[in-house]
């Protein structure tokens, strides 16, 4: 059973336009969500994250939206650039209370990835 799903295997966008990548999850215990970008022959690189207590987080051209009731998050890239062409992975994590009294996070559960191609 896949707890994090990216139902669009690929997305093609014109340079300068908006790219919207979607992600759905089923585990209501997830409380931290991340987007990673991956170029060929490289490891995933962290892009942006959002905690479940928020519904939006913005960092430059990248904005992540979280809809907890729908168990859905999306990544918006505006404006899209050819250098953004990569595989984008959505990931989620569950926080657990640590012995020290704080919250610790362990493994990430990833979606299948969406190949974004931005055309000049």
């Amino acid at each position: 059973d896949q707890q994090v799903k990216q139902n669009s295997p690929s997305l093609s966008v014109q340079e300068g336009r908006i790219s919207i990548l979607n992600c759905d999850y089923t585990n209501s215990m997830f409380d931290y969500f991340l987007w990673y970008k991956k170029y060929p022959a490289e490891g995933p690189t962290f892009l942006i994250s959002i905690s479940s207590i928020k519904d939006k987080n913005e960092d430059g051209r990248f904005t992540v939206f979280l809809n907890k009731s729908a168990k859905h998050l999306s990544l918006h890239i505006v404006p899209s650039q050819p250098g953004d062409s990569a595989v984008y992975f959505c990931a989620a994590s569950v926080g657990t209370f640590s012995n020290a009294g704080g919250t610790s996070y362990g493994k990430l559960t990833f979606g299948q990835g969406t190949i974004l191609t931005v055309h000049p």
Partner: protein
Amino acid sequence: EAGVTQFPSHSVIEKGQTVTLRCDPISGHDNLYWYRRVMGKEIKFLLHFVKESKQDESGMPNNRFLAERTGGTYSTLKVQPAELEDSGVYFCASSPTFDGPFEAFFGQGTRLTVV
């Protein structure tokens, strides 16, 4: 500062042979993770070390896989004996220990091909 480093970058072995993958995390990162991506599918969790202790090994496929983390520094992942379905890209990641979430930093991966 050096990132997460993995050795080798590629490995081709025959079915039944043994392969050992190595990961050097970012210095000072207590958390070390192993993940695997098979055939362009999702990246799947294998296990999580906190320092030298295995915190979560729920993703390890079977007892042919053995992970160690010596002295809480580098980690090795041994596959013995390797099977065809073990082929894939093995990623290592590390993160510091802070209260609250922190993104994991990934290495470039080791592409393992079992023939």
